[in-house]
């Protein structure tokens, strides 16, 4: 199991979604959870803080999840941060693109705490 004290960044433009994911993370024992409402803000936060894990939505204004992912992988200080993509079941092409851009895993919404835990365990296993 991953270290639940690590800082996690949840990126989604819809605050309810952020809150849902935050709740599930809390349920799994994570305590240090931050939110960002688009890729750009996420990137700024990432550059200024010690984040160990990013959970991001795909389609967001200003900077999409894919661009965020690419920026993370292109930045020397960030490139090793695991990124989990939150996606809808129909977005297969997005998943392929994300995989090629170096995403660690993806999760299809809606998901349970159990599924998220499996994904996190896999990433940090």
């Amino acid at each position: 199991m991953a270290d639940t004290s690590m800082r996690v960044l949840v990126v989604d433009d819809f605050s309810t979604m952020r809150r849902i994911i935050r709740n599930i993370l809390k349920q799994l024992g994570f305590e240090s959870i931050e939110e960002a409402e688009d890729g750009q803000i996420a990137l700024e936060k990432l550059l200024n803080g010690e984040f160990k894990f990013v959970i991001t939505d795909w389609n967001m204004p200003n900077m999409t999840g894919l661009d965020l992912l690419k920026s993370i992988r292109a930045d020397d200080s960030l490139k090793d941060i695991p990124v989990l993509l939150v996606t809808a079941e129909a977005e297969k092409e997005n998943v392929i693109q994300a995989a090629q851009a170096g995403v660690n895993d993806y999760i299809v919404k809606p998901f349970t705490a159990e599924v998220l835990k499996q994904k996190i365990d896999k990433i940090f296993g």
Partner: protein
Amino acid sequence: MTGPMTQESINQLIDSVAEELLMADPSNLQDLGKILDCFQKIQQEAHEEGLIRAADAAEAAGSLVRCMILDEVSDREETFDVISQTVSALQQMMRPGVDAENIFFPEKLPLSAAAKNKKDKQKFILPPHIDEEIYSDFLAERDGVLEQMESHLLVLEKVKDRETIADLRRIFHTLKGEAAIFELNDVANICHGTEDLIDSSGEELPIDKLLKIKDWLKDVFDALKNNHDMPQLHEQLFHETDAPQGETASAAQTVQHEEAPSQPVETAMSGDIDLLLDFVSEAQEHMDKIDNELLSLESNPEDDETLNAVFRVFHTLKGAAGFLALNDISRLAHITENLLDLARKGNVILSGEKIDVVFESLDLMKKLVANLRQAVSVGKTTYASESTLEATINRIEAITIGKTIEPAEKKTEHAVEEQREQPAEKAPDVKAKEQELQPQQKKAVVKIKESVKVDSETLDQLVDAIGELVIIESMIRQDQAVISAKSSRLNSNIRQMDKITRELQQLGMSLRMIPVKGTFQKMSRVVRDLAKKGDKKIEFTVKGEDTMLDKSVVDKIGDPLIHLVRNSVDHGIEKSTEERKNANKSETGNVILRAFHKGGNIYIEIEDDGRGLNKDAILHKAMEKGLVRDGQALSEREIFNLVFLPGFSTAKKVTDVSGRGVGMDVVRKTLEELRGNIEIVSEPGFGSTFSLRLPLTLAIIDGMLVGVGRERYIVPTLSIVESIRPSREDLNTIANRGEMIQIRDRLIPLFRLSNLFRIEGAKDDPTEGLIIVVEDSGNMTGILVDELLGQQSTVIKSLGDTLKGLPGISGGSIMSDGKVGLILDIAGIVKLATTENSMTFSKT
């Protein structure tokens, strides 16, 4: 020739993928992503180099990697092995001097699928979100479309006609969009290419080629209909345009879905009122935001950024609602998202009814969210759904694939309260979710029926013929020989014939009936536009939009309705929120548009809770314009009706929005042409209601047969208030106003039909005749006739152009004795009586 160089780089790529494979974790997405990258490069370079087998193998291996990324393989290790073996085979193949044909790839490598993808057959599988019925409907219509395509092409072979070319292009364009919905990618690609081909060919179309494409499309659709494999796509079919890019779908089909879709959160959310409230307020905020964006899309439907913003809101709503097990919201969002996604990808253009349904969906979504808010705020565990949900979802689905369906089955009712409590689990529940994951087609309520297109002229002729049949039937029934016949068999047969005729008449009428929905939907846009322009907050509610009306009526009331709705928004609702607040009203003004049945008529009402009509201002204005004489005492109703007079306009200045197009006088004129009328009810400070009464149908009229002298006329029953035989003291002759008759406390003009139509031998003394009191737009008039002859439904016949526009006559009808009767134009007569009576017909 870059041969050796490229071969070298292919070798390097193969080596690097082999290395990656050695190090990779088959469940690690990052590793898989890199491997896929490599295979794609190998495929591309091998293809350029003409190493077809290697390219195919790389593609097939890549498709396996894709399946692994998408978690669509049953045994990762095994699949991974297949990939590794493929790479070894590739390495061998690339060695100098090795005959590529002697190298064998693993059996489980979906080589054939990869190859087939490009040019061979594949079985088509309907995407899960598409309703099968819509799909079969789509297929059923293809023949017609292809025939049209062909006939256009044949015409174009002889004559170069721009319009036909444009139409042909449109057919391909539409087909492209539709095919994309069903994920018939080859078809969509071909159509896309064909569009380009048409564009680039100008007027010199390659007819042969286009015919071949059409033939291929025909083969495809025939195969789909018979559930055969997709036919081969001939490569020569399409050289200069993009060859369709094979999806890796068939490769994916060879492996199986392993994991069931994930289930919603079971515990975290249950009873989390806070979260639901959060959702509600955020959803409302987002929906308000996209209101404006939708409006701007209307004028600029292809603005990517705006489209994406709107798409995103529905997308996010779907996701969040999915978590919260708000199935209704999630479904509606999902289906709307599909349409928006197509628009985003350029497959459809959001205009006309397509944008209408998005507005509609947004409206409904707002209602659902409002219901949810209400439920959550009082701590209820259920929230109300909306009765229009299924119909809306179905309509969006249908429109998404490019067709309109009329909810024909919907029983029309004047729904006073459309909301209905429907148990919907608020607390997320695995079971509920599982139900939701079932194919949605089971929930479809509105079935798309087989339909045949008939031009409306033929329909009119049919309705006409039925009308004749009704008449001849009643002639037979009333024939003296029949009435006196003793045969009980004849009598029972006649009764049966009567029944069937009546049914036929009903059916004939219903053929022309369509819901007012389409027209009402336009109004929502009008209100939005106006509210935005006038900077007013307005809640627009539509009720009874499924009410059916004769098509010709629906076609004609559009403009008057727009005018009335404009009027309500522009003049009815107060200029500022302060004004409303001062009047103790909510900041948001309400405009309600409703349709309902009442007593054989259809009513359409536009109600607002604004300022109400100002009687003094109207009267003042009418006097200014010389429409009313000084000192003339008018009832409230009469004052309101002044606004319908030509040349009257309450707007102090003609504004951009209200002063345009039709005026109130035209509104009334249109209604009169439709044999309806309009009335105003208004309370100063509380708002106004404009009530339009319309006949159910224009083809048949319920009439009272009256006799004047030796003539007979038909008075439409819906205009008749009462009929009386006046006594001497009820009759008055008033200076300047002619003959009047006192009915209870009202004095109304008396109108002699014999005067207008110069009928000889009519009764001259009103006390010996009968006075039929008719009403139009609130004005009453007494019509003097000799006697009442009976009541009957008659089919209206046009009098033809020569007799058109006769004052006082609106049409003719064949009566049961076979003679022609004239139908009185009550609106016209009332107008004559109230305005001209004083001059022309006064007998002072």
